[in-house]
């Protein structure tokens, strides 16, 4: 019987360098804040409208709904703020990686060989800050591919360009 790790340790293979990961653009935090506050004020105003117009009678506990909303959004805000520094990406010569998550950490790597196509998206707020979303698609189940939000538009196109040449070559 052979232990797989012992056996394979004989050949050396490159490791994912934890400290070489790049943080995404600081400016993207603004986009996150904008989206967050839009959602926050939208939900508050929905509760307010329902309370005010009396479509459903919630006046008895409307106060608690506001409190619950504010607490939930505060927690969400803190998670977004602290978790932001955890969003990192890395482009190596043969693959692209992304990691994120404060309580649910996730690291994903897609080798260039396996990429089907790449997409660059820009939302209205991101456009204002000149940021973009880079999405990498692989074959098969397309739900769980790599998505890097909040990198500079120029960086995104550069990465896309680089990967395209790598795929062809």
């Amino acid at each position: 019987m052979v232990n797989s790790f012992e056996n394979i340790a004989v050949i050396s293979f490159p490791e994912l360098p934890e400290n070489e990961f790049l943080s995404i653009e600081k400016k993207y935090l603004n986009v996150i804040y904008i989206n967050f506050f839009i959602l926050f004020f939208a939900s508050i105003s929905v509760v307010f409208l329902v309370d005010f117009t009396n479509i459903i009678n919630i006046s008895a506990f409307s106060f608690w709904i506001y409190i619950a909303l504010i607490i939930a959004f505060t927690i969400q805000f803190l998670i977004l703020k602290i978790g932001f520094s955890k969003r990192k990406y890395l482009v190596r010569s043969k693959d692209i990686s992304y990691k994120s998550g404060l309580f649910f950490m996730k690291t994903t790597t897609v080798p260039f060989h396996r990429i089907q196509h790449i997409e660059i998206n820009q939302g209205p707020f991101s456009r204002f800050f000149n940021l973009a979303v880079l999405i990498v698609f692989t074959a098969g189940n397309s739900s769980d591919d790599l998505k890097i939000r909040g990198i500079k538009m120029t960086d995104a196109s550069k990465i896309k360009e680089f990967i395209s040449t790598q795929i062809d070559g």
Partner: protein
Amino acid sequence: MHQKSKNLSALKLMDNATLFSQFSTQSKKGILVIYSNQIFSLLKATWILLILFIQKFSKLSAISLTYMYLGIAVVLVFFLVRAFLIFKNFQFKIENNHFILKKGIIKKTNIEIPFDRIQNINFKQNIVQQIINVYEVNIETAGSADAEISIKAMTFEQATALKNSITIFDKANTKSEVEIKEKPLLEIDFLALLKVSITENHLKSLLILIAILIGFFQQLEQFFKGSGNDELVDNFISENSSAFQTSIFIMLFFSLLLVLVGLISSFVRILLQHFNLTVFIKNDTLEIDQGLTTKKSIVLKKNKVQHITISTNPLKKILGISFITFSQAESGISKEKKQEIIKIVGCKIAQISAIKNLLFPNENLNDFDKNQVDSYYKSRLYLQGIFVLSLINLGFYFGFQNHLIFWINVVLFPVFALLIETKFKKRTYLFSEDLLQINFGTIETHQTILPFYKVQCVSMQQTFFQARKNVADLVFQTASGKIKIPCINSTEALKMYNFALYKIETSQQSWM
């Protein structure tokens, strides 16, 4: 089956190139096949209306009857014309290693598929096709769902010629394809099929049957609602549930009946699907022929298989049989139309190793140690188990007013614990230079084998609690779905992560 004509068509290989160079329609019998398919789906959609119609038959006046017949005749003729037009507009040819198809009466569609995108070519025969002796040829691709092609009627010679000209587009394969190995790898006779069906998961068969019946009754219910029959049923139920003592006998009787129904339904299911199962190994492909009412012939290309799963259960283990499931690249766009699962039932150990040898030559995983997942996985399972148990108890609390029912936990808890312990014990993984093997299962035992180079992307997940215990989940995303190893030591997970990436990036083999 058709061995002679097979050889003949092999000789005619040379003509294949010219055979499909012009746009051609399928066999004329195709009109009949399309027509019967249409009529069948029409009947399926309107069978309740028809029954109602027959019930009220005597009450209808002569004039409205004539109109009825006229209407039916018009519908029948309409579908005949439609079938003819579909047939006439369905044309295909082969050009520059592309399969080109144009179809559609009003909305014209042009489809072009390069040969190397074609995943497999299957032959199929339903009852009508068996009677008029034509074959349905299905061309499956990985990728877009609307590129799935189904040619409804071809003669056997045409079908094989088409298959050959598609599969043998590069010269290297041509030679070996002619030397067909006549002796099948696996032949399952009626008795062996009986063995397979007895050892099936009868609960599953029963659930499938119940699901079918529920769908059937819901259809009925919609039509008969409010007709007064509900009351009758309700009365029947309330009368019989009043006496608790007799209900125990009824329950016993029903559970016996359920066991019997489960057995029979597994048998019927297995017989319909896998009747006369024969598997051939031809060069780089597996050919699987099976089916009772619908005969199917599947050709599985070796390099299109993403991963395989070998499964068995305690009963099957005693008889020394297991089944193999082959996973191919999914067509990502249509989620609802799941690709048919390709399965070989009733494999003996020798046959399994032959198939393994075909797919992964020169690989032997038996020499490697099994790695157990971390005990964190067990605690996670227990936590889930306790959650489910408390839900069940809550259900009891509201369902029965009697407190004695909670004694059932004395039985339930050990059962849960036993299941969790076996599930944890079976969760192991091992890997060699090129292959990864993951074992899992509770009552059944599954063994998934995946070559590293078929992996599309790798990811590692860790919750806050897992991080404190220094364990992580490893997920291999393949073209045929996710494969997950839960809760292994973080450093080992990272090592495997890096190793898998290294294998993918240095591999020269194409994943499909």
